[in-house]
């Protein structure tokens, strides 16, 4: 699958290079002394999970961001890329994940856009130059077509052609396959191959391992803002697909497999009849349809649901909680079918959902904590009687939970939106874990929290399982899943692609499943 670069003799300098660049944002180091070299005639893949720092790195190449430290070199000379226009001048063209074309204009008009106001757009000239570039790289685009009527793959081709027409020798494709069909992704891969044969350098950003191997000549892996490894073309060829996969999985998901997994959950693996049983669950969704989910969770068991964000986890969780219609499937809680019940009905029977959208759907920011703790029980006795609020009962309930769950707040009447993320999460946990909870779904429970609150939240999850609750833990943080779960299910493209016991091999198995390499 892997091709050798087509460039003739290696030039003395890389066409573009980043030299030990560091970029900080409030609270995070997005790129920490990252070096990166781009050679003509090569597809250089930038691989990493969400939040690994790929976008920041690309931002510095395409003129959206300036590095705080370190230098950017174009053909060996240090440059300052302060704007996308400057990047274009230097021959660096970027195709962003979200199209930068005007849908209601034709292809030529999009390319002609930006001349003096009263001039006529040079449509014939643009179409001619476009045809030349198209012929050179082997794509067919109707110049008169309205952009909005083209497929996303075709729109991407238009943007690539436009970048080349402006003289780009470096092409950055940011998550270019994320929105494409498998066929579209394949076509793009073939196109990248033809581009490199013309001596163009391509930066291809992706989090899909199989695409990296199929399309890339050189692979750089980022993890938590650091460059954790680079595989040069010769090495990539020498390794072969299987060994390269192993190497990349090791780089992407950490080297300390075994050591930490061994110190995993000390609890005995719970056994017994499943408490929560899901069979053939399917959800219709325009972006990620979910289908054929079978999963059962025993009382006291934590099943981790790992996977790269946006692979149907959210749709699955919401369908389970009753916030979305099921297209098919059954859900049984303690033997009772609950798939026809609404959110309230499921909650009454003990199914709880801790959402990751804490301020959006989890709480009403301007309401006091006391009411937010009862948000899913409004109108129920003893807090409301005949539709009348019972302030004493509400306050007692709130004081008890705030104390029990250690919510740090000036008072129970404080608007919950004023609290820190960690304390809002504590309040949410208090609401969902108290009362007659039997099964709980956690969606990215520690996302965006600080270390202390992460630890506290994970402790709550463990305690919930120890109390005999069935727990589904959805997380994009593999460390978290491996630390807490008894079993790990991996979700990819709306399906569960594998369930593995959390043992010493779990890390690499899960890593492979997550990356779409189904061995």
């Amino acid at each position: 699958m892997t091709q050798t670069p087509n460039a003739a003799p290696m030039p003395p300098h890389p066409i573009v290079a980043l030299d030990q660049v560091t970029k900080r944002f409030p609270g995070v180091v997005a790129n920490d002394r990252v070096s990166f070299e781009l050679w003509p005639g090569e597809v250089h893949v930038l691989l990493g999970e969400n939040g690994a720092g790929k976008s920041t790195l690309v931002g510095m190449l395409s003129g959206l961001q300036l590095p705080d430290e370190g230098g950017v070199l174009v053909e060996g000379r240090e440059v300052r890329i302060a704007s996308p226009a400057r990047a274009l001048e230097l021959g660096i063209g970027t195709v962003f994940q979200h199209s930068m074309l005007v849908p209601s204009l034709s292809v030529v008009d999009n390319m002609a856009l930006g001349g003096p106001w009263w001039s006529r757009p040079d449509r014939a000239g643009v179409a001619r130059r476009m045809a030349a570039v198209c012929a050179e790289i082997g794509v067919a685009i109707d110049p008169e077509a309205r952009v909005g009527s083209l497929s996303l793959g075709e729109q991407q081709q238009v943007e690539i052609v436009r970048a080349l027409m402006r003289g780009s020798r470096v092409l950055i494709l940011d998550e270019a396959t994320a929105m494409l069909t498998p066929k579209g992704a394949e076509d793009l891969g073939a196109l990248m191959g033809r581009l490199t044969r013309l001596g163009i350098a391509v930066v291809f950003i992706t989090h899909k391992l199989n695409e990296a191997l199929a399309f890339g000549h050189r692979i750089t892996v980022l993890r938590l803002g650091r460059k954790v490894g680079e595989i040069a073309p010769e090495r990539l060829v020498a390794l072969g697909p299987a060994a390269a996969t192993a190497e990349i999985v090791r780089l992407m998901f950490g080297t300390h497999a075994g050591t930490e997994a061994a110190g995993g959950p000390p609890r005995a693996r719970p056994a017994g009849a499943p408490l929560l049983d899901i069979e053939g669950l399917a959800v219709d969704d325009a972006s990620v349809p979910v289908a054929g989910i079978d999963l059962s969770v025993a009382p006291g068991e934590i099943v981790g649901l790992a996977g790269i964000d946006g692979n149907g986890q959210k749709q699955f969780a919401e369908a389970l909680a009753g916030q979305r219609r099921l297209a098919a499937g059954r859900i049984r809680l303690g033997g009772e079918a609950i798939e026809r019940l609404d959110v309230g009905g499921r909650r009454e029977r003990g199914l709880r959902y801790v959402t990751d959208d804490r301020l959006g759907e989890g709480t009403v920011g301007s309401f006091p904590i006391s009411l937010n703790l009862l948000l899913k029980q409004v109108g129920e006795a003893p807090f409301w009687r005949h539709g009348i609020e019972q302030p004493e009962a509400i306050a007692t309930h709130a004081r008890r939970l705030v104390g029990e769950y250690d919510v740090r707040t000036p008072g129970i009447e404080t608007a919950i939106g004023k609290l820190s993320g960690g304390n809002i999460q504590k309040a949410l946990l208090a609401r969902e874990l108290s009362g007659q909870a039997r099964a709980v779904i956690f969606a990215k429970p520690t996302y965006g929290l600080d270390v202390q609150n992460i630890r506290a939240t994970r402790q709550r999850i463990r305690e919930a399982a120890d109390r005999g609750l069935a727990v589904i833990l959805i997380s994009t943080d593999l460390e978290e899943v491996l630390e807490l779960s008894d079993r790990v299910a991996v979700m990819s493209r709306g399906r569960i692609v594998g369930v593995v016991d959390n043992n010493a091999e779990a890390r690499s198995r899960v890593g492979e499943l997550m990356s779409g390499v189904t061995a």
Partner: protein
Amino acid sequence: MSGLFTEAFLTSLVLGALTAGLPLMLAGLGEQISEKAGVLNIGIEGMMLFGAYLGFLVAYATGSVWLGFLGGGLGGMLVAAPMALFCIRMGLSQIVIGIALTLGAEGLTALLHHFQFAQSYPRLPAVETLAIPGLSAIPVIGPALFDRPPIVYLAVLAVAATAYVFRSTQLGLALQAAGDKPAALDAAGVDVVRVRTFAVFSTGFLAGIGGAFMSQVGAGIFVPFMTNGAGFIGIVLAMQARGRPLWVLAGALLFGACLSATTALQVAGVSIPTDVIQMLPFAAVLMVLVLFGRRASLPPALGTHYVRGAR
């Protein structure tokens, strides 16, 4: 009924359609430019009214119809200026500012008019017409359409000019992009704020002339609140025309015919209650909205403030 459709009646009906429709057309054309660029210009009613006022004042003071129209255009642009500042530059709500400008223009013109013309109500002399040789001799439509003040011909030419700008100039592409995907326009090196500011001032100019037409040609006098919702009908026209200037012209004449039918039917002494007759134009607006409202397509970025880098 045969007595109703005399040549004189028909001529007055067509003439009325033109007189009532022309301000609507100018308003609709102006609104269309703003909407194309992504600005929902609700202040257009105020722009028309201020144009009507200033146009009348200038024409009365100088005795020149042309200066009057120029004054009307400037009057509209005076109201457009705060819209451009608050909505385009500062990003305040286009709807709130638009309503404020309309209400403000209504109050201000009524107040100024009250102080200036408390004692007397001067009328302007009838505007001279320019007969187009040959065409004006056609029965019925000849005198109604081709023996009109020159501003009428210019206004119709403005429709053609706008259609040309939309289709065949960089400005047209820029306006379209500003309303559809401002980020793409910005990336192409065109200043979105400038394009939108230009659009709003064009709207003010055209709407102001439309207002001046009402006071100088239609009535010969300024009356407070005289635009009476013409700007809002212009908004409806612009939305229904879906970015095509010629459709604005056609729609404006249709609405103008409905408006003039009220007068014509009353003159003809048809035995329908006048209230019903006066309802006709608004019933027509309702009909059009009910029938075609669903199909009105608006630019995706309409009414939103453009901020670079924000999604």
